[in-house]
């Protein structure tokens, strides 16, 4: 017990002593002086002469310096003064070579920052983006057939929903019905994304609310005093400034009052709904909504498919006009649905980032190895004046740790900034939005990356000590070996590291090249239309509008007219089902001249006669239909070039007839003209324009007068003369003047549409890969530059001798370059081989592949050019050495 107390007291005393070192030493000096004086006195008393007394006293004492040293060691924390000295010295050394320090720190920081940032994003998005309970059992039911390989979600009516609830494979299922409603109240009405769900939504999801409560089956409308609503977190922050007081108040949607009972969790973003309502689902056999199933534990996807397929077939028979026909059921997990291709792209990105980390560490290793070789002379000298190997090792370790820690600290900062940067630039529709709130720097990954970086820095920082132990210290100091090119093993290590670094850089460059090709290909895809200054507007007539064909037709035309007559508008048209470059409404068609065609399909576009002018699609033959024909829903139609190619391979389509049974819709919300599925005469052919997305081929398309099928929504495409944003506002105002009850559901620039849904993913990947490739190239270049510089500086004497013996400068340059460029070339070849063999794994997009010879040649040229430059400068410096100077140099 006493021992422990003693230990503790010792520790405390030694820690405190740090602050009083100088006074303690003064005290000791005085004490020792007294001791010696007393000893001399005694010796004098015993009869010695003063000199003998003094020397006897001293020899009895032993070494004074050694006593002071032992005392000092006993006094404070023993390692501290030594550590401080090492730190000061290390700092001075690094300060003397700022270039080396900066590059080493920078390399580590980049590697750590980039890899941690990307991994954090990947983890949040891929590994566990959903906060929902048992998200791994939640599935999407897709219907697929030959023409829709990507499938569409299964729609069901509220009656059919009950069938799903009773399936043995189904644990729970909820219904979703999206609509956009007007949030009316004190200010201008704004359009809100409203999700009406079956009342079991929140029990299904199992995510507790942020504020208040969520609705339960007890809140189901019908019988309840006031309907309730739950706000999404983002909407609550945006619209109500994040004020908790909104809970309990009422809001008005489409002139119906709802009491806000709660705010959802920040990560609950299902359907991107801004307001969640318990739906009032009428038993309507033609109104379809989306079901979402959670399968029972242990149930396979196959058994669910087996149970669903008979239902789907039955629904198809019961409602042939509204329910998709001839489809097969497929089950996809949540992530597959949302992420699709982006999943593999993210994984590839993660691989790229690991490469960057490796390159960063390799760079630091190269730099430290090179520096170690250059400092061998210094260490040999130090060791010969008595520095123990341990001492030298300790000092090297201190330097390396200082470098590594600084690099790691910077890397951590970069990681946080990087995560923010990536998150703001993620392509909006490519990842589950539930993950947005959860993307943050992951602690364990950070530690892991820091540990790797530290390990690298320390390992290679200690290399000079290893090399020193092999050679004789004396021989090194004597034979000016600081000017020799270093041990052979060291050179091989250098070469291997550089080749490896170049290979990995090549891999990154190739991936970046492929990603950029993909983006460029996609963005340069001919659209068939002119997207400049083009925007679309979705408008909704007020509730209570008469559902007669005449009223709706007149209303639609007057809206279009109001838009077109707005100042700044060049042309405005209705396009009810087709928003280029995407498709809309696909259905069966029949061609009069070819009765054998049984499974012909086409995109059915309901448009104004002016649509082709608005979109600037050229007319190939025939004519457009006239406004008068549109007004009376004349049975005339145009077709696109693909339609002609496929269904009129050798004839002239003009004058022939087509019809589509799909236009006869048995839907109370739609109002059709008489016999919309009757034969129409083809009066014109237009050129192809994208109608099935950017990456799929153009579908055959038929253009009908928009008055054929109408509802209370009008969809406009407008071409502005200039400044689409201002023109959008002007058109909204014109329509407001026409009828203040009409409200704008959605409006966007077509350019915005293309950016976010066309090529957002490809652009994101191209940008980030390009960034990493450039960083890797820089790192590789600095690594090569450093090694060549050090090699040159060591061989200065040798070059001096060569030139003094008559060698030309050019041959000296050639000497230096030969070795380095050979290494680089080997690295590049390895890199290309790696790229080709891994091309399948690296594919980020179906639009471009790494196996593109032109691209590979291009990036190889860039790599060689940069590395050649990096070698050239030190080589040129070597050649400009004056021979006499070199010979004198020590």
């Amino acid at each position: 017990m006493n021992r422990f107390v003693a230990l503790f007291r010792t520790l405390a005393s030694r820690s405190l002593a740090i602050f009083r070192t100088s006074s303690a030493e003064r005290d000791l000096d005085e004490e020792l002086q007294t001791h010696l004086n007393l000893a001399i006195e005694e010796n004098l008393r015993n009869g010695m002469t003063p000199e003998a007394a003094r020397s006897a006293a001293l020899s009895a004492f032993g070494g004074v310096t050694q006593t002071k040293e032992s005392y000092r060691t006993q006094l404070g924390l023993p390692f501290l003064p030594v550590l401080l000295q090492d730190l000061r010295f290390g700092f001075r050394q690094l300060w003397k070579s700022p270039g080396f320090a900066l590059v080493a720190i920078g390399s580590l920081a980049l590697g750590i920052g980039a890899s941690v940032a990307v991994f954090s994003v990947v983890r949040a998005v891929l590994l566990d983006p959903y906060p929902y309970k048992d998200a791994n059992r939640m599935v999407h039911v897709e219907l697929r057939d030959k023409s829709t390989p990507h499938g569409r979600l299964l729609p069901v009516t509220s009656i059919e929903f009950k069938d799903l609830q009773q399936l043995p494979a189904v644990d729970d299922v909820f219904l979703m019905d999206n609509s956009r409603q007007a949030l009316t109240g004190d200010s201008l009405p704004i359009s809100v994304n409203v999700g009406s769900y079956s009342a079991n939504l929140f029990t299904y999801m199992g995510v507790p609310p942020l504020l208040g409560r969520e609705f339960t089956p007890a809140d189901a409308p019908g019988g309840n005093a006031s309907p309730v609503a739950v706000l999404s977190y983002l909407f609550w922050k945006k619209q109500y400034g994040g004020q908790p007081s909104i809970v309990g108040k009422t809001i008005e949607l489409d002139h119906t009052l709802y009491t806000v009972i709660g705010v959802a969790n920040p990560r609950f973003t299902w359907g991107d709904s801004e307001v969640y309502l318990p739906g009032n689902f009428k038993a309507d056999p033609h109104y379809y909504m989306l079901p979402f199933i959670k399968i029972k534990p242990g149930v396979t996807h196959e058994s669910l498919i087996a149970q669903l397929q008979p239902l789907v077939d039955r629904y198809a028979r019961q409602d042939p006009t509204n329910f998709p026909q001839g489809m097969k059921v497929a089950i996809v997990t949540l992530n597959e649905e949302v992420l699709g291709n982006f999943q593999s792209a993210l994984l590839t990105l993660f691989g790229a980032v690991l490469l960057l980390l490796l390159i960063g560490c390799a760079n630091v290793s190269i730099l430290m190895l090179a520096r170690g070789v250059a400092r061998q002379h210094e260490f040999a000298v130090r060791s010969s004046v008595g520095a123990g190997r341990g001492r030298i090792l300790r000092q090297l370790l201190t330097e390396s740790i200082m470098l590594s820690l600084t690099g790691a600290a910077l890397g951590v900062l970069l990681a946080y900034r990087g995560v923010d940067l990536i998150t703001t630039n993620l392509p909006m529709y490519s990842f589950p939005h539930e993950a947005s709130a959860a993307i943050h720097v992951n602690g364990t990954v950070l530690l892991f990356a820091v540990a790797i970086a530290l390990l690298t820095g320390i390992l290679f920082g200690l290399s000079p000590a290893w090399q020193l132990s092999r050679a004789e210290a004396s021989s090194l100091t004597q034979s000016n070996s600081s000017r020799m090119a270093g041990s052979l093993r060291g050179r091989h290590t250098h070469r291997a590291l550089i080749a490896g670094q170049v290979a990995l850089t090549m891999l990154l460059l190739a991936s970046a090249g492929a990603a950029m090709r993909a983006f460029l290909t996609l963005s340069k895809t001919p659209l068939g239309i002119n997207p400049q200054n083009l925007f679309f507007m979705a408008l909704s007539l007020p509730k209570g509008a008469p559902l007669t064909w005449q009223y709706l037709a007149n209303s639609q035309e007057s809206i279009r007219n109001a838009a077109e007559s707005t100042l700044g508008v060049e042309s405005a048209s209705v396009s009810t089902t087709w928003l280029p470059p995407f498709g809309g409404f696909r259905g069966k068609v029949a061609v009069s001249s070819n009765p054998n065609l049984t499974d012909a399909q086409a995109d059915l576009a309901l448009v104004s006669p002016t649509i082709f002018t608005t979109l600037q699609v050229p007319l190939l033959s025939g004519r457009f239909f006239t406004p008068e024909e549109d007004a009376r829903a004349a049975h005339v139609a145009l077709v696109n070039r693909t339609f002609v190619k496929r269904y009129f391979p050798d004839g002239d389509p003009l004058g022939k007839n087509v019809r589509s049974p799909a236009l006869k819709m048995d839907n109370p919300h739609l109002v059709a003209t008489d016999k919309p599925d009757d034969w129409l005469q083809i009066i014109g052919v237009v050129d192809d324009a994208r109608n099935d997305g950017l990456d799929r081929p153009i579908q055959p398309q038929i253009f009908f007068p928009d008055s054929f099928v109408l509802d209370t929504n009008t969809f406009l495409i407008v071409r502005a003369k200039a400044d689409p944003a201002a023109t959008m506002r002007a058109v909204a105002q014109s329509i407001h003047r026409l009828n203040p009850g009409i409200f704008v559901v959605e409006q966007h620039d077509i350019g915005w549409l293309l950016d976010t849904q066309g090529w957002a993913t490809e652009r994101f990947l191209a940008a980030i890969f390009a960034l990493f490739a450039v960083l890797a190239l820089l790192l590789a270049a600095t690594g090569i530059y450093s090694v060549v510089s050090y090699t040159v500086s060591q061989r200065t004497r040798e070059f001096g001798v060569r030139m003094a013996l008559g060698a030309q400068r050019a041959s000296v340059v050639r000497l230096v370059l030969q070795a380095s460029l050979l290494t680089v070339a080997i690295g590049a070849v390895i890199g290309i081989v790696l790229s080709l063999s891994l091309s399948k794994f690296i594919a980020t997009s179906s639009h471009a592949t790494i196996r593109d010879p032109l691209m590979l040649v291009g990036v190889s040229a860039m790599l060689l050019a940069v590395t050649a430059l990096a070698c050239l400068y030190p080589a040129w410096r070597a050649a400009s050495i004056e021979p006499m100077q070199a010979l004198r140099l020590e």
Partner: protein
Amino acid sequence: MQETRSDVLQGTLDLMVLKTLDVMGSMHGYALARRIEQISEDAVSLNQGTIYPALLRLQQCGWISAEWGVSGSNRRAKFYAITRSGKKQLVVETRSWERVAETMARILASSRPPL
């Protein structure tokens, strides 16, 4: 046979200092060193300097205390005295030292057991 100057084990030096201070009361460093030399009849010739780190160590453990004072010949010197916990430590150390000596004595005196 003269004992060569040898490094005295740290622990034994601590014990010697504690015992001396316990018996003699407060002393300064020089007196302490000379006293140990005398009592051991010069069998222990330590480098007198080694006593100072030992004194510091004992101070840090709290077993002795130190105070500046004036020596016999009017010189400023640090005087050391044993503390209460030092006395306790002395008892413990003495007992363990005696145990070791006893065991060694038995082993060295033992002869081959009769068959």
